[in-house]
């Protein structure tokens, strides 16, 4: 179908042992997680947890040993990710660094940047945020206006970023900024560059934005004459769009795009046994989960082979978002409040609210489907 390929991939040979270790660790770590933790999962933030994960070698697993990485395969990393997500672990304090900021620095960063940042990400000590969206630039990201202006020894940043998850808790962000001449409408994708920005620099103010659950999840960041040295430019000046787009293949490829609400199914399952409609409904959910897992593994396999499966990742993310968003609604039709424990009802309520974000974060449904449509040859 129009150049979209999904070749089945097996998990690596050592997967059962790796899973056993992870499950033991997660059972212990998750003993007292209230329902809000799995409901937020990788949007949650727990530095202690991330440091423990780092200690066990589960961050930067595929990176070179020279920076403290584990030099393990992308498929082994996949096993770790899916185990974390299946229980809704609060991985947000290391997730972005492990998934995209670290790989970006590894691919395009200077040796100095690699030595400075990668070991700390690997130890679970350095939390990253993604500075892409702006108040007037959401799905139309290339219209962004926050500028980095060249000054002696570095760059001066002015403007605003918004919806940056956990920025008020993070150490650094990778910001996509306009460094080229004032925006030419025909060349909007040019003149953008990526920078490592310390979230605590003078001139930065971060204002948490309450989400509809009432949590401080995302933020607005104002840059007022913020100076960053030349050494914080990532990759090539003016190539930011291409760099950020390649990064999106990593961002969109993972199991976090279909597993977000699975902990609810796990939690609710035992109380559905008396519900006559449950076998068929649960079977349909499992058929889809198993299939999405194989699609997600196929994309992970392509990443392992050094490919950039941006379109396949967009398709799996879109299908996965549909699934993880529909799951709480389906369970709602099955769950009888009279015989459902309060913590299951609480998780259902939380996930009903949080699920709205699934088809927004990392590229909206409409943007993803536009990418797929172009791949199909629709013009």
């Amino acid at each position, binding site marked *: 179908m129009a150049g979209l390929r999904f070749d089945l991939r097996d998990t690596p040979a050592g997967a059962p042992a790796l899973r056993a270790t992870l499950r033991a660790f997660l059972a212990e770590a998750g003993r007292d997680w209230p329902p809000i933790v799995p409901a937020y999962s990788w949007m949650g933030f727990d530095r202690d947890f991330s440091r423990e994960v780092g200690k066990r070698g589960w961050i930067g697993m595929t990176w070179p040993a020279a920076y403290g990485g584990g030099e393990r395969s992308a498929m082994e990393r996949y096993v770790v990710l899916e185990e974390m997500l299946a229980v809704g672990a609060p991985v947000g304090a290391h997730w972005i660094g492990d998934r995209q900021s670290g790989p970006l620095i590894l691919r395009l960063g200077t040796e100095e940047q690699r030595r400075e940042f990668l070991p700390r990400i690997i130890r679970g000590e350095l939390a990253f945020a993604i500075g892409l969206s702006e108040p007037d630039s959401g799905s139309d990201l290339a219209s962004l206006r926050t500028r980095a202006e060249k000054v002696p020894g570095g760059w001066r940043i002015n403007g605003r970023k918004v919806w940056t998850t956990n920025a008020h808790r993070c150490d650094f962000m990778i910001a996509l900024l306009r460094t080229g001449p004032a925006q030419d409408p025909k060349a909007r994708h040019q003149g953008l560059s990526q920078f490592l920005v310390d979230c605590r620099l003078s001139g930065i103010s971060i204002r948490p934005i309450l989400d509809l659950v009432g949590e401080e999840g995302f933020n607005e960041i104002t840059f007022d004459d913020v100076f960053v040295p030349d050494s914080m430019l990532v990759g090539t000046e003016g190539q930011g769009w291409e760099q950020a787009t390649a990064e999106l293949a990593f961002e969109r490829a993972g199991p976090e795009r279909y597993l977000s609400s699975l902990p609810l199914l796990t939690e609710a399952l035992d109380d559905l046994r008396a519900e006559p409609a449950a076998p068929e409904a*649960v079977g349909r959910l499992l058929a889809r989960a198993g299939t999405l897992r194989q699609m997600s593994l196929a994309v992970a396999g392509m990443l392992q082979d050094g490919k950039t499966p941006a379109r396949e990742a967009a398709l799996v993310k879109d299908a996965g978002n549909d699934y993880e968003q529909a799951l709480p609604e389906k369970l709602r039709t099955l769950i009888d409040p009279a015989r459902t424990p309060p913590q299951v009802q609480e998780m259902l309520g939380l996930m009903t609210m949080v699920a709205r974000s699934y088809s927004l974060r990392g590229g909206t449904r409409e943007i993803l489907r536009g990418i797929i449509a172009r791949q199909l040859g*629709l013009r």
Partner: protein
Amino acid sequence: MSEIRDILVEQVERLLADRTSPALLRAAEAGTWPEALWAEAEALGLPLAMVPEDQGGAGLGWADAAAVWHVLGRHAAPIPLGESMAAAALLSAAGIAAPAGFIGLGIGSEPVAWGRRASHLAVAPGGAVALHAPTGWQQGRGLIAREPADRPSLGPALTEGRLPAAHGPDAALLAGALLNAARIAGALEAVLDMTVDYANTRKQFGRAIGGFQAVQQLLARCAGEVAATAVAVTNAGRAADRRGLAGAEFEIASAKVVAGEAAGIAADIVHQVHAAIGFTDEHPLHLHTRRLWGWRDGAGPERLWASRIGTVALARGGSNLWADLTSRDEETAA
């Protein structure tokens, strides 16, 4: 095995591209047996392709067969080749020499596709396989797909055998489910391609309708269903090769559920995009979409397969859900 598979898939693709046409499908629906097409399929050795090589077949496994069935679905091939291949596979697995010619496959109490043309019929109740030469057929046809589908008067079995335990008590149903899911995967690909072509040629408001976001969004969703079905089917074939049909019940059931859901969703979308012309008898779209609706009911609708795997999951409980989902391919690999 993949080399033989690639050759066969290419041969089947070429054969069907040359020989199938809307006219042939319409004639088959009216009861005319596509003699020339079947004869060529037989000349290529396709009906016995799943029989081991030392017994005169090509030794195809379930994943290989699913790849061939995918091509049959893409062309809506109006011959019961998939059924005959699966019947021969079950017969030889039970130590029975598969006869030449078209062997019908008995799936539960379902009528047998093109039974009237079958020299033999294989049935597989409760882990056994029996070869019959039915004494007569009550002719009928599928309600939606309109393919000839007949009920046999069985008579005594010519010969019987036992299947290996890994195929379990429901081998014909499982094989039939894999067959129907694979055909759906192929037909989905075909209707998506037809619809993309149509959307890029049909002009309204001065431009191709494929340029409208409303249409693009629908077809992108359709592409997601097409891709999911293909992956589910490939996964089911792989599982059946590794663990036998019964051992692959979860994957085959999943493939049938995903394929069945996808058939409904995709047929909605491709008809919506084709609009009135696609609702006509003249336009060939329904030759595929009616088969999508027919095949999703064949060898158990989604309801049956979803309930089966759902019942198992409920009995195993929440604490085993994720472990069961991830361990299936790792137990054998470890």
